[in-house]
């Protein structure tokens, strides 16, 4: 039913029709397809036009794959400290050896030496010993998602080479822990935290925003005041105060959920505004009136008729809110009020960069920051693309 209503809308706006035809790169046979295309198809055509969004979508899929399978992607255990590999710079990968011969990608043996005056440790490549990088190697044992036991890893060196040389794509930190592995594990917490807290803010936002927009009047006024009030308090100082209230002795999982709750506490106001706006706009639509005249109950009108037509807006808004959540979590953990080590999130990892000496000697401790920026930008582009595609019938 919702779709036929949409078709009516399209008929009423011939210019829109043409636009969609153009967007779909339509020939006459395509034209037929546009008329009968379901909304999601139109949205996809429009989303596809936004190249950056498309690329960012791929980036996000990769990032979330890493987050989901971090044990598999990471070649080393993230907490495995090794004093021998302290502050090793990112390992250079070669395909051409010193004699100019081409090989499967490999790395050289690195010799560690200490400057007798400054006590600075340097690593020099020894071009006589090569270690080829192997795919799908056996390494440390893990339980994937707490169930599947395995020791298979995406890449790494031959297990025999383990105590001679390491493959550190992003270098190691002060304790000789592999930054790449840590960033992968950090992705699991940081990226999932974004999703979970956005989901919580969605529940609150849709509920309160929906009530606000649908019923209007006094309830609307109260909820709007509450939203304004919440937004009056500067976010970070408020979050700091709230997360300082989380007891220090809580286990990681509890702190994790406590933090998502805290993040959702402000996040819902953005969702609520969007939902309310859509409700207000939709309340006056003809198809809602038609449904009401047909004797549909309020619940049915909301769930069956209104919800499908603004779902796409909600999804777009959700996508645009996730980066904020990620940034807030990173900021809080970074200053020590969010998650705490031994939990690994990008914010916790960045704490290492607060140490000026560590930052200058091993600037790669900033890499978790790059991961944050990458995911935030990707979500922003995808969100932009989704917002443009959210209403495929609008101009």
């Amino acid at each position: 039913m919702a779709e036929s209503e949409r078709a009516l809308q399209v008929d009423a706006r011939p210019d829109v029709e043409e636009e969609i035809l153009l967007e779909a790169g339509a020939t006459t046979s395509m034209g037929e397809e546009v008329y009968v295309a379901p909304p999601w198809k139109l949205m996809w055509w429009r989303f596809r036009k936004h190249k950056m969004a498309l690329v960012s979508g791929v980036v996000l899929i990769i990032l979330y794959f890493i987050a989901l399978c971090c044990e598999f992607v990471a070649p080393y255990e993230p907490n495995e400290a090794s004093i021998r590999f302290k502050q090793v710079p990112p390992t250079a990968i070669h395909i051409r050896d010193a004699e100019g011969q081409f090989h499967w990608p490999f790395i050289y043996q690195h010799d560690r030496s200490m400057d007798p005056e400054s006590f600075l440790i340097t690593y020099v490549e020894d071009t006589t010993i090569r270690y080829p990088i192997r795919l799908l190697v056996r390494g440390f044992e893990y339980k994937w998602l707490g169930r599947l036991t395995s020791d298979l890893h995406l890449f790494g060196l031959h297990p025999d080479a383990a105590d001679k040389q390491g493959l550190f794509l992003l270098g190691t930190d002060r304790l000789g822990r592999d930054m790449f592995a840590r960033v992968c594990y950090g992705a699991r917490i940081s990226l999932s935290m974004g999703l979970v807290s956005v989901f919580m803010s969605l529940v609150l936002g849709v509920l309160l925003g929906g009530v606000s927009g649908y019923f209007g009047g006094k309830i609307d006024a109260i909820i709007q005041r509450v939203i304004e009030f919440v937004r009056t308090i500067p976010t970070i100082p408020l979050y700091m105060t709230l997360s300082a209230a989380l007891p220090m002795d809580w286990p990681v999982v509890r702190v994790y959920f406590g933090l998502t709750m805290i993040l959702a506490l402000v996040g819902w106001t953005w969702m609520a505004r969007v939902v309310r706006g859509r409700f207000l706009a939709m309340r006056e639509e003809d198809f809602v009136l038609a449904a009401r005249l047909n004797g549909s109950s309020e619940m049915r009108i909301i769930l069956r008729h209104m919800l499908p037509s603004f779902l796409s807006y909600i999804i777009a808004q959700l996508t645009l809110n996730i980066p904020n959540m990620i940034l807030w979590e990173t900021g809080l953990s970074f200053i020590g009020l969010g998650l705490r080590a031994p939990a690994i999130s990008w914010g916790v990892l960045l704490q290492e960069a607060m140490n000026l000496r560590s930052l200058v000697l091993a600037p790669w401790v900033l890499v978790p920051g790059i991961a944050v920026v990458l995911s935030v930008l990707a979500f922003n582009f995808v969100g932009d693309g989704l917002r443009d595609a959210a209403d495929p019938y609008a101009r």
Partner: protein
Amino acid sequence: MLAYIGRRVLIMIPTLILISIVTFAILQLPPGDYLTSYAAQLRAMGEQVDDEALESLRERYGMGQPVYIQYGKWMWGIITRGDWGQSMEWQRPVSELIWEKLGLTVALAVFSMLISWLIAIPMGVYSATHQYSLPDYLMSTFSFLGVGVPAFLWALIIMYFAQSQLGLNVGGLFSEKYLNAPWSWDKVWDMFKHLWIPALIVAIENTAGELRTTRANLLDEVNKPYVELARAKGLSEGRLIWKYPVRVALNPFFSTVGWSLANRISSITLMSIVLSLQTTGPMQLRALTSQDMYLAGAVLLLLSALTVIGTLISDILLAWVDPRIRLEG
């Protein structure tokens, strides 16, 4: 206009009271109080803890009393005597500690806002009038960088380059000479020399949104018939753009001063912790971790009050530039 301002000020009062209640309630959430964590700290260092002394301190700070009485006393002190309570960690009244830091936070916020406007308005106008040109694309890229890279990360990056390339320490807002010196013109000048980097960092994070708003609003505006009319009458293009559509497009700037201030305070807080600037950020963090509740409460309350005042200013500005609002209200 005066009546309008008066009404706005009256609306502020219940908001502030509500904020103070919420603040106080949040500070009561964590188990224990400053004295328990202080005692634990002493024990951890292997020192004797004098229970009697603790008890007398508890008495002095009124900690044994019910929460609403503590709240009432706190509020009463603030309203009647400007007494924000005692900072337990510093052993000094909160009001002695807080004003200078709060002033620096405000200075940083206002300074960064001016920088943002200086960047966002001309760039946004140029972007909108030269849509799809190379500078337009460059500016979009720039604004995405602002969105993606948070202020505290900029702070880390700048700290790294300053330290490793130039051998400079960018932390702090004053030279050592002026650190504990009383305020003088030399000290203010010294502060400005240190202030611009953090102000720029905060501006980068917050300019992006404003740039995009200016651009989008102006794009909406320039296609309206009145612009066409002005053009038809032979007005020069520069005068035409700056005199009419830009003025309308800038309205959202004024209406969001309050929120913009709140966002900047957030950025400043995190960034200050990284760069150890003498703003409220590091002080709040410390007060929170040591459960120095009157200090932490005063910081949160005053920062919120800043936003409320910012909103008031934005209402006044908006009424000033847009007669429609003034007449309606």
